[in-house]
């Protein structure tokens, strides 16, 4: 039982990372139906920016804030200067454009920072641990789960409780009607891109101390986050969180009891199973609405 608890706690930490990535993907999908394939690379870039600043003796909080701001600025700029001029392109075309951004970004990162893995200095330790009734939790895991939960709470508050969030939801549903009410739809889109990118960046910063930093660091977490988003329902923000945690925990439990090598396989087996029973995802609604 203690063993199981151990795996679940590990899964919670991984799951909150997946959930953060998934939230960013869902946020963008809901607002414009675009799947952002550059999500992981923007996150890695944010982490590299923070890493570089840390190397210049900038305080940790400031460096991370600068990294997230860089991600947000990049996301918003990408919307304004690339997606906006290409607004007549089909949805598929726009998705391919994000794929192009992903390739450009990973190239830039390779040239700037090299392909070697780097150690990302983090104020929390992976080896200092707490014991909760037999279950061992590292400081890093506590930090990751805490930060993840806090960010998810902030997002919920912003989207559900503020006028700005209301405007974001309105633009996501019907941009034309929103504009007719005087809501600046383009600025809202840009803001959504910025927020989603910053969320991804947060996931990157939390992941870097565990897996080491390199330009391809976010590849696996991006795919898992995408899978989590589909599992939870690609148009549902709570679904992204639920999907992220289910995926993280299932993966960890499976890796612990059965096979570490096949943990990713299991994750996707779960997704296939869920989508067979509920095509719209666990909390999604889109499928029903279209029928």
């Amino acid at each position, binding site marked *: 039982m203690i063993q199981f608890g151990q795996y679940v706690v590990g899964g919670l930490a991984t799951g909150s990372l997946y959930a953060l990535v998934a939230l960013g993907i869902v946020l963008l999908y809901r607002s414009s139906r675009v799947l952002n394939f550059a999500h992981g690379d923007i996150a890695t870039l944010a982490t590299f920016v923070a890493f570089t600043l840390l190397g210049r003796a900038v305080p940790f909080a400031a460096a991370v804030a600068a990294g997230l701001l860089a991600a947000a600025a990049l996301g918003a700029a990408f919307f304004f200067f690339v997606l906006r001029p290409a607004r007549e392109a089909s949805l598929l075309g726009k998705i391919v454009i994000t794929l192009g951004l992903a390739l450009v970004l990973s190239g830039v990162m390779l040239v700037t920072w090299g392909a070697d893995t780097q150690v990302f200095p983090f104020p929390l330790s992976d080896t200092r641990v707490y014991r909760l009734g037999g279950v061992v939790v590292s400081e890093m895991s506590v930090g990751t789960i805490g930060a993840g939960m806090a960010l998810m709470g902030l997002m919920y508050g912003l989207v559900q409780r503020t006028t700005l969030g209301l405007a974001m939801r309105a633009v996501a549903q019907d941009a*034309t009607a929103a504009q*007719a009410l005087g809501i600046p739809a383009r600025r809202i889109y840009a803001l959504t891109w910025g927020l989603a990118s910053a969320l991804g960046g947060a996931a990157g910063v939390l992941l870097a101390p565990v897996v080491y930093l390199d330009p391809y660091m976010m590849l696996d977490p991006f795919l898992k986050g995408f899978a989590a988003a589909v599992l939870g329902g690609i148009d549902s923000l709570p679904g992204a969180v639920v999907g992220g945690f289910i995926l993280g925990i299932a993966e960890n439990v499976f890796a612990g009891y059965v096979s570490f090598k096949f943990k990713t396989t299991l994750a996707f087996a779960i997704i296939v199973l869920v989508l067979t029973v509920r095509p719209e995802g666990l909390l999604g609604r889109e499928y029903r609405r279209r029928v």
Partner: protein
Amino acid sequence: MSGGDGALPLRVANVETAYYGRLTVLRGVSLEVGAGRIVALLGSNGAGKSTLLRTIMGFIPDQPEKGTVEVLGRRVNGWDPEDVAALGVAYIPEGRGIFPELTVEENLRLGAYARRDVGVRADLAAMEDRFPVLRERRRQLAGTLSGGEQQMLALARALLGRPRLLLLDEPSLGLAPRLVADVFRIIRDIPSTGTAILLVEQNARQALAAADYGYVLESGRIVLEGTSARLQADPNVQELYLGAVQDPSVKGFRRYKIRRRWE
């Protein structure tokens, strides 16, 4: 905000609009809406009525090709829709443009999005007094409302922005006759709060009964204009838009030709 109270809510002069720069829909349309007036714009399907409203709001990129759209004394050609709206224009598109997955209350709050004054809360309450059904359904998702209730919601939401000009596209579309009468009763009351209306309608009988003045748009041109009384008395309007019964006659074809000439 410049423009002043003396400026006309809407002045459209010689507007030409083409979709994709090729398909010309409006061919030199001019009309005016005075303060506190209801002006009806009649016309059959494809005449360009909705296109005119979309042009005024700035929803058609790079249009109008020629002519001027003036809202409250400001030339708004090339403006973004949200900026036109912020001048004091509310636009209810065909299909009503409500947000189906937001609650009724959230929809209403968005109506006052562009307002920065403190009277919003009081106006919300007043609007719920005016439309009691919206208070009952306040927590319901707007998509679950009936067609008539959705039209009420759209009207209430538009009025919460305290617009100087309201552009209405086919408010009666898809409503049962009784609801149409309800909707028009509300529309007739709107000018008393200082909002002028440009009303696009196919239901000419109701529209002319509510309006002070009317224009008839056909194939992108204004073919007739006048006071509501004059339009109601016009034989062509009667036959084409009010469905007055004419004697069946072998001269029907000739009359057809006459009516297309609009004297």
